[in-house]
Each structure stands twice: as structure tokens, then as C-alpha cells.
């Protein structure tokens, strides 16, 4: 139970830190800021675990996870899952979620009824659908998955390896032509 309590408490601390960092120290590399916040909290979580007693001074014997290394491992796993599956995913959805942005555009529009042409032109708070895809291209250029040569977009060697793995997975799931 110590693992659950500490992981929960540190996830709340992490959420507060991430919120403060994003609000008061904005940079273009927000995911990196979040990762640094996570690693700092991860170290803090481990230190708190070592600094406190197994029963935290109030837990019954039947609520203690044995052996102690398993309690520590579970705490780090719960905390990491809360970050990678929770906080970071919330950021990804809020910052890059296409469908969610469509819903927000609907909610912020002057008119209650909207057609596709309006959405294509005004997607992303008025920036348009081409801007959205430009962000994806920019992200792939920044992470060196693709490169721009004249008017062509080309896979880099890193991008080709990633594409091969993704293609194999999609083919296994029968999302790609099987021939």
C-alpha cells in the first residue's frame, strides 16, 4: 500500500509542477520540459520511499507489499504509468488531438451549425487544416525522420527504420495490403 500512496501523492506533485512549468516557463519544447519534470519527481519519489518506514507509521501488516524491492518497483511503475499513460497523453491529446481540436472549434464558433468547408478553413482556432499538417511535417523534420529536398519529402535512414517497423505492425494488424 505504501507504493500506491506514494505514487498517488507524487503524481499530484508532478501535475502541479508540470502546470507551473508550462504556465510560467513556456518554451517550444514542452514535451522535453515535461520529461525533465518527470525524472526529477521520479528521483524524489525514490528518495521519499527510502526515507520512510515500510508502514508509513500507520499501515496495518496486511497492507504491506513484500518483498520490499517489489514495493519500490511497483511504486516506480505506478508513477511512470501515471506520467506516460496519463499526464503526457493528456498533453498529447490537448496539444495534437485532431478530433478534440475539431470539437473545440465547434464550441468556439459563432454559429451553432458548421459545415466541412468552414472547418477546413478555420481548424485550429482559425489556422486551417494545412497548418495542422504542417505541424506534423515540422515535427518529423525536427526529429530527423524525414528531410525536405527541393519540393520532395524523403525518409532519412532513421525514418526508414521507423517506417519499416510501423509498416510491419500495420501489416500484421491487416491495416495494410497483404501482397
Amino acid at each position, binding site marked *: 500500500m505504501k507504493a500506491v500512496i506514494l505514487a498517488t501523492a507524487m503524481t499530484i506533485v508532478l501535475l502541479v509542477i508540470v502546470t507551473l512549468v508550462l504556465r510560467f516557463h513556456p518554451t517550444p519544447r514542452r514535451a522535453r520540459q515535461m520529461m525533465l519534470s518527470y525524472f526529477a519527481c521520479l528521483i524524489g519519489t525514490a528518495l521519499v520511499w527510502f526515507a520512510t518506514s515500510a508502514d508509513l507509521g500507520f499501515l496495518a501488516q496486511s497492507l504491506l507489499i513484500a518483498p520490499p524491492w517489489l514495493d519500490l518497483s511497483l511504486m516506480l511503475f505506478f508513477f511512470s504509468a501515471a506520467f506516460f499513460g496519463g499526464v503526457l497523453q493528456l498533453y498529447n491529446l490537448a496539444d495534437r488531438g485532431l478530433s*478534440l481540436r475539431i470539437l473545440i472549434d465547434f*464550441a468556439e464558433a459563432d454559429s451553432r451549425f*458548421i459545415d466541412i468547408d468552414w472547418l477546413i478553413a478555420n481548424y485550429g482556432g482559425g489556422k486551417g487544416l494545412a497548418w495542422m499538417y504542417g505541424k506534423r511535417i515540422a515535427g518529423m523534420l525536427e526529429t530527423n525522420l524525414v528531410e525536405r529536398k527541393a519540393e520532395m519529402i524523403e525518409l532519412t535512414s532513421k525514418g526508414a527504420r521507423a517506417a519499416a517497423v510501423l509498416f510491419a505492425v500495420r501489416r500484421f494488424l491487416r491495416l495494410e495490403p497483404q501482397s
Partner: protein
Amino acid sequence: MLTPALATLAVVAFWFLVFVGIHVFGLRSGRDNAQWLVRSYAASFAAMLASVVALSMWDDFGQMLLLSMLVAALTSACLFVLYVPAVYTILTSLSVATLVLLRRSGGRVPEASLYDRFASRRLMQQRLCVLLDAGHLVRDARGFSLTPRGRAVARAFAFVKRLWRLGPGG
């Protein structure tokens, strides 16, 4: 030595693997991903909890049943929230779709044709259909409009965007 917690984690791992197997089987069979994902996980989660209870009774871990159930439920939920984003990245990410298209096209494609394909009316139509199916939008002769459910989701994420100062995003 096999402690109650280790035995519980072994049960969780087994049922999560069963879930992944069933989910992948469903995807390969062309089933609707969202429904199949929820149903297969709910079934494996219930079976996992039943197995933990049975294990506790059988192996005299009864006094630790509460802890075993909590650890099992949390561990399974954590595995699920790590699994789902990976699945959706493979299924719906435009960046992934772009990389796969580039591979299929010999590694290079004119930038304009990528925009034609991925910043297109067809893409918007597909996403609107998904939102209609999910009950976030409705459609009539005047166009598309938000349902109360869609408005609630939009407000929640608009709040997160404001809180974290994320800008327009999307």
C-alpha cells in the same frame, strides 16, 4: 519465494496478455477497434479479479485480499493506459500514416501531394464520421453541431489547453 503480491502480479500479467491477444485478434478480424478494445479489456479485467480472489482463497492469502485486489486492479489499469496510446498511434496518427506512405512510395513523395492527402476534405470527413459515431456531433440539413456530450469534452480539453497555455494546438 512466491509472495502474495508476486502471485497477484503473475495473474495480472497472464490476463493482460490474454487481453492483448484477444484485442489483436479482433483488429486482424476487422472488428470496430474502440468497442472491441473496451469489451475485451472489461472481460479480461473481470476474469483477472476473479482469479485473484480464487488465488487468495486457495493459497490462504485471504487476509491480504484487499491489498491483492488493489494491486491487481492498479497494475492492470496502468498496463492498459500504456497500451492504448500505443495502439491509437499505430491506428490513427497522421505522422505514422505519412511515414508508412513514404515507405510504400519508395521513400520520397512531393510535399504537395502529402498535403493533398493528409490535409484534405476526405480526412476531415473521416474524422467527422468518427465524432458522429461517438455521439459527440449530430448532423442535419443545416450542418454539424455539438451534442451535450461533445460540448462537455470540448470544454474539458479547452480548459486543459488554457491551464497549460498550449495555444491553438491540434
